């Protein structure tokens, strides 16, 4: 635990994403396009966690995301914790929540859907947040958010 605290506190200005399940780490990296980022990114993988056994953590210096960007994370990792740090101070610490809409993240499981046959962004409405039901804006097919494939 000491080690992780060190990683978090070492960030003086930026965003920390904590409690990422290890098997979802790379999806989170892709979702936030961290590979294209110019600022300093620190990734902790297979860290010990009293809550989760092992976890991953990502620390992004000098970068703040919109709520929409961050809430997209809930699709791949619903239990992550966000920590926003400005000038050495933790100004916000909160869980992510499922947004009302998902743009360009989730793949539609209907092979006859236009989004699978045309170069275009997918678009889902979250119709039931409690049960994690999403509906394709185009073909109207519903999916369970725990079973989705990412784009």
């Amino acid at each position, binding site marked *: 635990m000491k080690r992780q605290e060190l990683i978090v506190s070492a960030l003086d200005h930026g965003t920390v994403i904590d409690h990422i399940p290890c098997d979802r780490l790379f999806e989170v990296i892709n979702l936030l396009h961290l590979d294209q980022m110019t600022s300093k990114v620190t990734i902790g993988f297979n860290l010990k966690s009293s809550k989760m056994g092992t976890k991953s953590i990502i620390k992004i210096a000098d970068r703040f995301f919109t709520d929409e960007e961050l809430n997209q994370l809930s699709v791949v990792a619903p239990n992550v914790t966000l920590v926003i740090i400005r000038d050495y101070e933790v100004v916000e610490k909160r869980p992510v929540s499922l947004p*009302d*809409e998902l743009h360009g993240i989730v793949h539609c499981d*209907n092979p*006859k*859907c*236009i*989004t699978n*046959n*045309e*170069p*275009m962004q997918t678009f889902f*409405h979250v*119709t039931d947040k409690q049960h994690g*039901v999403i*509906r*394709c*804006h*185009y*073909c*109207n*097919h*519903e*999916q*369970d958010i725990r079973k989705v494939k990412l784009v």
Partner: protein
Amino acid sequence: MPLRGKDSELWHIFAQGLADNATLYHRQTTFEMNRSLVTIADHSREKIEYLIRMAQEFERRPNRLILQGRIVATLFFEPSTRTRLSFETAANRLGARVIGFADPKVTSGTKGETLKDTIMMVSNYADVIVMRHYLEGAARYASEIAPVPIINAGDGANQHPSQTMLDLYTIYQTQGTLDNLNIYMVGDLKYGRTVHSLLMAMRHFNPTFHFIAPDELAMPTLYKDYCRQWGIKYVEHKDFDADVIAGADILYMTRVQRERFTDLMEYERVKDRYLLKLDMLSKARDNMRILHPLPRVNEIEYSIDDDPHAYYFQQARNGLYARQAIICDALGISLEDIQNDPTIIK
């Protein structure tokens, strides 16, 4: 609860109820700015009644030049001769010119091209695009990118709003109202896109539905849930006979197709049980009318064609008036314009 495409239009309405920003934005883009018709589920009671009044005007005077100088494109990415002829006749009888294709296989213009490119290209030429596509959601997508209105003439198993509009018009025409009717649906209620759309569109009019279908093709639970949610009364019947039919205002027949059955023994057992025979009309109400989206195979005995309750051929003709109304509405032509139309051909 995974949904099939046919069931899914339901959720469109659920979502509409939520009136989230996206839906509001979307309705604005499709029905005010852009005037496209993607699904009947977007229409209010008032809008349905408005289109019915428009169709009535066209039934009285179908030949006009109100669309003279306009170009209607009919893009059939999947062939459907019936629907295409109906739309093209509607446009031609109002003086429009029609361009398009009936089958993309014979049109080199669309080979390997994205839907977007085809739509953008045709938007340069036409004032409105009628499109049928084998992919679900194609019309919704086209309506979001096209600078001209899109009329959905069927997108896979998803939506076919002009069929629903002509069904509503026919019910109104035969009953003088859409309110408080007993609507009996017979045959394939599981895969029948038309019965699902009609059921949802009727939610504004306090109907009582009666579902008559073999177990394998019964009305899906989802639509029964939908009925409960909207306070729509429904009754399920096992028998299909004169006593059951006696309570009907509308008898909506559909085709029971062999290929819908997983159990062919079951098909053999039930295939004749949902055929309508002349003697089954002995107790029918005078106002009762038999509808069918056509084509039929054998589910309505041919001797019924001359019975006063038969109405399916008139129903098909109403497709013309309903589509004239849909095209004009998409082009921003109002009921008032149509009522005061100086271009009527006597």
